């Protein structure tokens, strides 16, 4: 049994500790946001926040998050109450097939938490572990910058 906080609520998953966190989140916790792309920490599709840090979940064992705080794209916001990043991705139409987006949104959220007004180069650097085969990169970068300025405006 592994207990941790998932998207703000306590969970206890009765799954082997050695199972990859990604599999536990998808199969055990029934989430669909974190996606399998490579299983080798090389594509970014599976990223989640672990104690606020954007982390690949595909190779990390479930046991490693015991007692920690895990946030997936589902925990960022919902259609009714979207995270400014999610709203900005829709406003910029940042995506095509969308398979890469969950992981990218999670990394962007970690970036904005650490650096509320990143420039373009900082966004690209933060998103560099993420592959997008559809070529939506420029729209994604614009969306992150839009969310940043929007969040700054709200707090001003």
């Amino acid at each position: 049994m592994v207990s941790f906080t998932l998207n703000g609520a306590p969970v206890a998953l009765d799954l082997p500790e050695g199972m990859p966190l990604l599999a536990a989140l998808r199969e055990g916790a029934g989430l669909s946001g974190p996606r399998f792309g490579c299983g080798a920490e090389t594509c970014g599709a599976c990223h989640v926040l672990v104690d606020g840090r954007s982390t690949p979940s595909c190779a990390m064992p479930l046991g490693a998050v015991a007692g920690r705080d895990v946030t997936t794209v589902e925990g960022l916001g919902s259609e009714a109450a979207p995270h400014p990043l999610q709203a900005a991705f829709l406003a910029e139409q940042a995506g095509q097939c969308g398979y890469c987006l969950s992981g990218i949104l999670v990394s962007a959220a970690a970036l904005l938490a650490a650096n509320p007004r990143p420039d373009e180069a900082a966004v690209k650097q933060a998103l560099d572990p993420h592959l997008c085969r559809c070529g939506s990169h420029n729209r994604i970068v614009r969306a992150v910058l839009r969310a940043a300025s929007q969040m700054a405006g709200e707090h001003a």
Partner: protein
Amino acid sequence: MSDAPKPLPTSLAANPRLSRWLRFTPQGQVVVSPGKVEIGQGILTALAQIAADELDVEPARVAVRAVATPDSPDEGVTSGSLSVQNSGVALRHACAEARGIFLQVAAQSSGVALDALRVEDGEFLGPQGRVGSYWELADRDLLDCDATPGSRAKPPAARRVAGRSAPRLDLPDKVFGRPRFLHDQRPDGLLHARVIRPPARGARLLEAPASALPPGVTLARDGSFLAVLAESEHLAETAARKLEAACRWQEADTLPEEAQLAEWLRAAPDPMETIAERQDAAGDVAQHAEAGFFRPPIAHASIGPSCAVARWDGERVEIWSHTQGPYNLRMDLAKALRMAEEAILVRHVEGAGCYGHNGADDVALDAALAARAAPGRPVRMLWTRAQELGWSPFSSAMLVEVSAGLDASGGIAEFAVEVTSNGHSSRPGRGSLPTLLAAPDLADPFPQPPAINHGLQRGGGAQRNAVPIYRVPKLRVALKTVTAMPLRTSAMRGLGAPVNVWAIESVMDQLAAMAGADPLEFRLRHLDDARAAEVLRVAAEMAGWRGRARAEGVGMGMAVARYKNLGAWCAVVAEIEAAEVIRARRIWIAADMGEVVNPDGAANQLEGSAIHATSQALKEAVRFDRRNVTSDSWESYPILRFSEVPAVQVKLVERPELPPLGAGEPAFGPTVAAIANAIRDSLGVQPRVMPFTPENLATAPAV
């Protein structure tokens, strides 16, 4: 016969029953049912826009049903930038006709004259007010009739929805992480499966010891096809790895030497056949240029590995798939499983972007074979990253040899292009043999059919865009389709176009230099096609081509093509920086795609394809040894990253009155070519081997 009604759009002629394309619900919805599928290109949104416009309903009322056999229209494969061109035009006609049928019934029952009726968000309004709606007549089976020729669609100027940017209908699910992909499906009783592929191409399985399996794991074997099934995904994965390590195979060298691949293509015994020829009067050749261009095989490299779910129910099997052609897949599944097509149901569910024929179809057969071991249970087969990169069909290696001559006044006198390549289509549903990956592995195997190249009238395969769009008095274009196929090849974004456009446009720059002309002027001088000239001028303008300043290590190049010589016109200017590696800095794209249903959606496609093309041009090559593909990870098959993407600017030359042409591929070839020409501009060498890495540029000749 000039007033004969316009014939039905092709897709509608093949599937004329209107009720197959759309129906209304009493609850106030329109459900449209196209035969094309969403592959990340935004087709669902464009089709909903078209339907909303022709029916006069709010776009929010339109739901688009994913393709499923046997009810959806059979529109073959979603490929070739034809989604809007085929499905959109058919749906527009079907909706316009449906609107007319409903209004006629409303006119009859209300006594209001037909031409006094109009439609507002699905309500029928006469001079005295409301007389009915689609929803009230939804149960009357009014669309159980065939479409008739003659267009009733609105004139372009009357469109209110199509032609304006619309947000993509599928994007919210993807931004909120909701279960939308096939990979997310979790039907009751789901089992997870993994396939074990041989260590070498064509290897035969000698032994698969069941003793290697952890408890609770089922083995599915048919000849050399091998899969495991388990209740949990983790268990299936672990079991597959254990079994893989314990298997014994009979293997041999079957692949050519990677470094000799161009030679291997050149030496293949297949005939070089002329496919286009012109012998007009031309001046004597005063100067001559010759160059050969080589591109290695390329992977689709989808971000989500291929996936399928299959469930056997007695003698029938139901398949959930992200295939591009559900009906075509059904045909080849029927062949490979040796059963009737009617006993197979294929339902489309979205996957990650595929960019052509990746493993989507293959994994469906894998799922069906694995699921046989667990009758009645849905079985989800997922490929590994290594399988996706190593076993999906590849875009063929290509060799394109060009020779051209200028007359004494610097005009093109002759141009010859010779293309050597494997076929560019192994898509299912087109021959007597199944093309699916596992078919040759079965205990009762099928030989693997060679990939084919369609003729130029269908846009061609390897020879796509091998005919220059310029005025050339003496022209010869020839194609050698190599039938020996050590690595399985099939369709990828652009097919042969990226290589052919690169080769032709590279030689155009070479000729311009020989003629002492600017690349833009030289091209314009030889372009009779006004739409090609227009996009070229627009792209040059966007990039500031004429006033461009020279800077050390920076280069600018241009290219133009009409996709397939039948589709959209597109010109690209690229700016690169040549340091340790080549970096694409900026890309400007001008495209003329006729009517554009969703301008932002089209721009998104053009931008994406330019970035994809940049990745291919600068980084990509499938690597292999004598037995198997070795570039089966993101480390060994790198693609362009955020820190490497160029800025991309797009301008659409809109022509709402002209037929729509697709957006997904036209920028691909011109982008590769413009980058190559920009390299030549900055380094003075002509790139002749893709990708344009320092190693490959080291052998590029100065021309």
